[in-house]
């Protein structure tokens, strides 16, 4: 019996693959399966070659999987393009009225399942998309899914469209099932009873947005850029209910500028973009740094450089964000690996920003931003706790008073007698600039030094609060695999495969990237028998970063930069090669 199933829908932009994938995900969630889905696409609105792959299991699902058990070809054009990606043993469902697999020279070692979904749908209605429900019917037969649960999902999704729509969808489902039965398709996954459970199925960006909302996000500004835009889409959808500001701006400079303005007023604020927009934001990020204004900036990375491959994943902005903006200022970098961690990151980012009056950069990547997965109910925080904000201005108030932690409680505009000046120039404790007339005078040299120390000290204090990195997996492993961001869960899956193959591997996942637990990481790496860093870029940025922070030289790297997510088998093969060469 298979442990998990991979289903791949192949179509063109405009075929409604996203809603198809989400609907199928919801059907599986209803069956209490764990689900992970990801769409591979290009930067076109109509046409092109798209695929939506969904993997599910009653066990943990950590990657979107490799070989497909079921491939659904939605049109002739993509059927032709998909040929080289068809794996042996796959069940290929296609509409034999317009696709001829012989003519397309599909491999012989597959199971061809013809399904005239268009003509079957036509017996019911003229609405074209109903063919998808015929396909769902046939798939549900193959997978032994519970028709009652599927119908429940259809009511939940389409109920609002009226009874007639429900009726024809039901009919299409039934016809799909009967067709598969008649043609004696062989079910490949037979489950008995499905336990019902209340899970969520949600995308990475939405989970991050929910995390921020949970932590009191009240201002969000952004300029559209794939793959960050869906955060703004999500927030905008619920705007009147949320009582917050969401602002599409004229450019990324305005996006980050407005977020800074709102944060200066005490509002928990964030902005998001991808690498190109982040590059435009950097000057103002430095300003937020020196002015000690809490700011959260999300960079969902995609394949660069420049416009690169706008719809493809990469983890190549580590050095961009680490080095962002001129000069030195405290800068927190957090890179979540999963939907759960994205939610947690949303909360932590806003809290850390306010508590330490620092810039927090959240490094997402396209694969995480755009994947959907099932998660246990997300835990919304219930707190109004504020940090380092003064309700009243104290006597002798100095906005930038030198403190032990580096954090100086601040007044917000509107507070009587709390007025202060802040600027992008170096300053005295009351805030006014020393740059224009005083810099370089002997009396101002210590002012500059103390202000730098005050700001940078915040990173040391914060580091103590951040969880120490932990190794996942066996202590006496033959190899330690280091990873960050969305590749970490793929590594975790590879580790299970390796262990089953008799190779003991463990994992170090790095979520808090700056400030960095150098000592603890060094300890872990020194204990490792062999080390391998897995990441999605050309030059091994995390490997180099770790060397810079710890002096430790990770010997092996697995790098992928063709735009597609790393798959477990790549990691397994690389580890075998490393371990055998020892």
């Amino acid at each position, binding site marked *: 019996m298979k442990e998990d199933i991979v289903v791949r829908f192949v179509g063109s932009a405009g075929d409604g693959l996203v809603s198809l994938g989400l609907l199928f995900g919801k059907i599986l969630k209803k069956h209490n399966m764990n689900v992970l889905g990801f769409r591979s696409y290009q930067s076109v609105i109509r046409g092109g070659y798209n695929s939506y792959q969904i993997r599910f299991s009653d066990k943990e699902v950590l990657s979107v999987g490799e070989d497909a058990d079921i491939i659904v070809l939605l049109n002739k054009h993509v059927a032709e393009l998909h040929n080289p990606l068809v794996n042996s043993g796959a069940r290929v469902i296609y509409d034999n009225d317009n696709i001829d697999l012989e003519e397309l020279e599909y491999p012989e070692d597959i199971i061809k399942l013809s399904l005239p979904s268009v003509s079957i749908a036509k017996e019911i209605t003229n609405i074209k998309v109903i063919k998808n429900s015929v396909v769902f019917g046939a798939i549900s037969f193959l997978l032994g899914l519970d028709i009652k649960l599927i119908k429940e999902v259809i009511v939940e999704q389409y109920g609002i469209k009226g009874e007639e729509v429900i009726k024809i969808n039901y009919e299409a489902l039934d016809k799909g099932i009967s067709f598969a039965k008649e043609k004696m398709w062989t079910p490949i996954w037979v489950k008995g009873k499905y336990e019902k459970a*209340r899970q*969520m*199925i*949600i995308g990475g960006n939405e989970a991050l947005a*929910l995390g921020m*909302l949970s*932590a*009191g996000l*009240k*201002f969000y*500004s952004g300029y559209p850029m794939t793959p960050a835009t869906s955060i703004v889409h999500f927030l905008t959808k*619920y*705007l*009147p*209910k*949320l*009582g*917050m*500001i969401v602002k599409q*701006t*004229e450019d990324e*400079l*305005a*996006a980050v*500028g*407005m977020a*800074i*303005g*709102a*944060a*200066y*007023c*005490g*509002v*928990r*604020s964030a902005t998001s973009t991808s690498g190109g927009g982040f590059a435009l934001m950097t*000057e*103002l990020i430095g*300003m937020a740094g020196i*002015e000690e204004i809490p700011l959260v900036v999300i960079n969902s990375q995609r394949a660069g450089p420049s416009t690169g491959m706008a719809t493809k994943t990469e983890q190549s902005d580590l050095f961009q964000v680490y080095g962002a903006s001129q000069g030195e200022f405290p800068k927190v970098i957090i890179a979540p690996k999963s939907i759960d961690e994205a939610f947690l990151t949303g909360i932590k980012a806003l809290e850390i920003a306010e508590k330490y009056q620092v810039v927090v950069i959240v490094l997402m990547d396209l694969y995480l931003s755009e994947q959907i997965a099932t998660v246990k109910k*997300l835990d*919304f925080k219930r*707190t*109004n*706790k504020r940090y380092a904000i003064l309700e009243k201005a104290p006597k002798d108030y100095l906005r930038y008073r030198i403190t032990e932690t580096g954090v100086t409680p601040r007044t917000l*505009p*509107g507070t*009587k*007698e*709390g*007025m*202060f*000046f*802040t*600027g*992008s120039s170096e300053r005295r404790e009351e805030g*006014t*600039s020393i740059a*224009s*007339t005083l810099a370089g005078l002997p009396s101002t040299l210590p002012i500059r030094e103390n202000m730098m120390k005050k700001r940078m000290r915040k990173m040391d204090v914060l580091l103590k609060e951040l969880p120490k990195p932990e190794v996942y997996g066996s202590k006496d492993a033959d190899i330690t695999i280091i990873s960050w961001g969305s590749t970490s869960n793929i590594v975790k899956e590879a580790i299970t495969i390796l262990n089953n193959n008799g190779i003991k591997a463990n994992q170090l996942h790095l979520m808090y990237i700056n400030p960095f637990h150098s000592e603890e990481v060094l300890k872990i790496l020194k204990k490792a028998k062999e080390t391998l860093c897995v990441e999605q870029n050309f030059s091994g940025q995390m490997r180099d970063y770790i060397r810079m922070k710890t002096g430790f030289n990770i010997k092996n790297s697995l790098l992928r930069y063709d735009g597609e997510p790393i798959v477990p088998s790549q990691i397994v093969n690389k580890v075998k090669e490393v371990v055998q060469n020892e």
Partner: protein
Amino acid sequence: MSNEFNFSIKDYQSDFKPTWCPGCGNFAQWRAIRQALVELEIPPEEVVLVSGIGCSSHMPNFLNVYGLQTVHGRGIPVATGIRLANPELTVLVYGGDGDIYGIGGNHFLHSCRRNVDIITIVSNNFVYGLTTGQASATTPIGTVTRTTPRGSIENPINPIAVAIASGATFVARGFSGDMTQLTNIIKAAIDHRGFAFVDVFSPCITFNKKQTFAYFRDKVMKVEDFGHDKEDFHSAMDLANRRILRNKLPTGIFYQIENTTTYEERDFALNQGIIPAKTDLELSDEQINAITEEFY
């Protein structure tokens, strides 16, 4: 606003003495802004003045209000964020021609059409002063500067015409040599509902030997002196484009319309009376259910 207003012009002034060259046009604006705030009885804690980079952008250092100096050209977006976060505040942007029309030009265009209730005052001296006298976006063609030793070969921007064409609802021009008029214009700008823009002829006595106080005194003419209809778009454009009064430099309110909604009145949170800066962080059960329902 407080019931008893007992602030004087001195109360809006910080201990930091202005660092501008003696005789600089910015001094007049420093005074006019404070005078306008006193006359309108807006207490210092309710005022935020945001600037960019340049000589004029040092302004918030010298004021006792909430002052924020940004980086070059970014005063407008930061001020917009402040105003949207807390619409109870009076938010002013102050910068030079290089700051607002040059490097920050995109924000200037969009703030005109957006109509957020902020006031943008531009100290226009036709030159980059702080970097010792290079051509700016308003430098007239043919002008010799340190970056245009053979004379500037670009046409200057017409900020008044640009603002009107971009949808600004209050467009005015003042002159640093006329304190009374400048104060009145700034007062009207603050009182205006929606985006207000004031361009100020402000001579740079060090790097601009052409657009001097004497030059402007000879040329300026108040728009009210010839019966200009500030509510008429085409008259305002004609005036801005110098189709009339060709040999004069008109000052005063070129254009003002009040029968239109502001961004704040259109925004889905602000028009419910929500003030983001004063809102509870915590979401209600109802809100949480609304935003998570689609994921079940």
